[in-house]
Every structure is written in C-alpha cells, then in structure tokens.
C-alpha cells in the first residue's frame, strides 16, 4: 500500500470502509472492510467534458 494512513482507525464495526488522504499527494486510497483497496482522484480529470445527454 502506498502512503501511510494519517490517522489511526477510530470505528470498530465489521462493515467499515476507510478513505485515506495519502500524505503529500492529491490522491485518496479507499480500503474496504473486505480489504480490497482502490485509489482515485475526487477532482475531475483534466481535459474531458460531460457526456452528451
């Protein structure tokens, strides 16, 4: 996993998912309760337009 979570886990339920802001970057890393991980940017990617409706 890239980046260290900035904060320790606070919720203890079995179905908690966490979204960490990766220190020093603009990226977010999501960790599901099933341990799957995914990374994404919340901002709009540069250079695209809304899909035609």
């Amino acid at each position, binding site marked *: 996993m890239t980046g260290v979570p*900035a*904060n320790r886990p*606070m919720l203890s339920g079995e179905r908690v998912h966490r979204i960490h*802001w990766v220190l020093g970057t603009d990226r977010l890393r999501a960790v599901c309760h099933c341990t799957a991980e995914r990374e994404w940017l*919340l901002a709009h990617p540069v250079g695209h337009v809304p899909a035609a409706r």
Partner: protein
Amino acid sequence: MTSIPRDQWYVAAYSSEIREELFSRTICGEPILFWRTRSGQVTAVSDRCVHRRFPLSQAPSRLVADQVVCGYHGFTYGTDGKCVSVPGQTRIPRTARLRGYPLVEQDRFVWVFIGDPAKADASSIPRAPYLDSPDYTTVAGMEPLKARFSLLVDNLLDLSHETYLHGGYIGTPEVASTPITTEVDEEAGIVYVSRHMDDAECPPFYAKSTGLQGRIARWQDIEYSPPCLYKLHSRIAPVGSVPHSDGTDPDAFHVEVVYAITPETEHSTHDFWSVARDFALGDDEVSAFLAENNRTVVLQDVVALDVLEQVIATEPEGYQELSVNIDTGGLAARRMLQRLAAANQAPATAS
C-alpha cells in the same frame, strides 16, 4: 421529492426550553406543540386543532391543568392528544384526536420521531452524554438557519472551511492543509472524519480558554450520525502529547462540540449547538468566552449558508459542483442521507 429523511429521530428542543407552558416548533415541516406536564413529562402533539386547524400555540389558546384549550372554539385536548371537550355538545367525535409524537428526553435534548410512530425505536437515538455530565461544563444555543439542512451537513463535515470562513477564531492554516481520514460504517450509520494536527498554531478560541500558548497538537474527530446528530471530538494538547494506552489523556483538554441539525422545512433548519469542556469546570468567565465565540462562529456559518441557499434556490437546474479531497466526509454523509430519504419514498410493498 423531499430530501428530508422520515422515520427518524430529530432534536426538537433543549429540555430547558420546554416548561409548563405552550411551546411550538416546526420540525420537518410539521408544526408540533410541546408542553411539560405538572408531573414533569414533556408531551408533543400536532399544533393544529382538528376542528378548523387553529394553532393551539396561538393565544388565546391556553394550557389549563395539563389540557390545552383551543383559543378559537374551545376544543380541549389531553396530553395524549385525545379531545376531551367539544363546545356545545356532549358527544366527542372519535376522530377528534391530535396526532401524537414519540418523544424521548435525553442528554438535555428533546427528541421527537418524525414518521410512522410504529417504527420509533428509542434505542437508536445517538447519544451525547457529555451534555448532561458533571464532568463537563456546557454552553449552548440555537440559531435559525434560512437554508436547507444538507448545507449545514456539508459545512460541518469539512472543517477545512475554518481556515477561511472562521480565520482568527477557530481557523488556522493547518486545518485546511492537514490530510484527513474518512471512515464510513454503513451498518451503524456513522461517518467519522479524523484530522490530527500534531504541530499546529493554537487559535484564540482555544488559547484563551485553555491557557496553552504556542504550538499545540490539535485533533478534530468528527462523528456524524445522520440525519440529526453531529459530534466534533476536539482534543487540544501540548505538542508531542498523545493519549495513554489505558485510554486516559491527562495532558489534553477535551472539547465536545455537538450540533443537532434539524430541518424546519425543506429550506430552513434549526441549528442547535453545544460546547462541552472537561476543563475550567464551572468557570463563568471561560463559559462566557466560549459561548460568545462559538456563537460568533455559528453566525458566520449562518450568514454564508443563508446566501448559499439563495444561490441554489435561484440557479438553473443541473449546476455541476466540483468535489475534491476535503469533501470525502461530506460526500459520504450525502450518500447516507440520500439512502435514508429514498428509503421512505420506496413503495411499502412490491406490486
């Protein structure tokens, strides 16, 4: 389509607001009449006479021996909402009954259940025990907001706005620039947002109330239980201090900032705020300082959100917002609120 979740508990008032007199407040579009009976119980019924819908909180309506007498034609109701007297006749129609609301008085709040009373489960009400604990001293207030409740949720779930909207009070540069971790518990219905600043400037709000000078460790842990209760666990400590492994935290100052976010209508909100502290207990000077400063901060939000409501209410449909990293918690809260609101609008049975 309403954005207000139904079948939910909402804070309707502080306990201290309800006395042995008629008190009216609109909650989620429903005008509700409250009073405290002679035995100390709070009662909540519809604030509209079943006859010609005259507000029962409106003079000359009055409370007589735990019964409310309509000031228009004299229909009289008991604490359970049942009509006990109709003018000019002895027969009382069976349907002459005010709608009653499930009610719980807890943590110095009066909670009412908006929706199907059969679904009211008092054990699901989130707690804020510090507000009624001898280990804390609390200041509180309520400001009316001319904005939809979701705007206040957005505002409180992202505290990076403190740096800009509340600079000089509770905002310092680190708030907007410290990464956050967002945790979402779908089962328990909690959104938790942590921002732990380990070496931060001490804003005047905390410097003057705690006496700490210079740099501090400042932790902000938001715990939001949609739709109504928001808690900000604020920890202020000397740099380098962390809670002990046994859970105690003797070097730190703790402030529990609690908001109850209650829709009045689709476009207005009751903004209940409380600040409970575990230091300077009973110190009136510190209480006055925190009350005045927190109210100032709340009013800065009120001004901004009232403007934002007008912007949203008058803009063309389809405006596309841009969300960034700081919005993670707010977006998680929105998703949970949308699910709660959609749950009431789904048909009760599949056809």
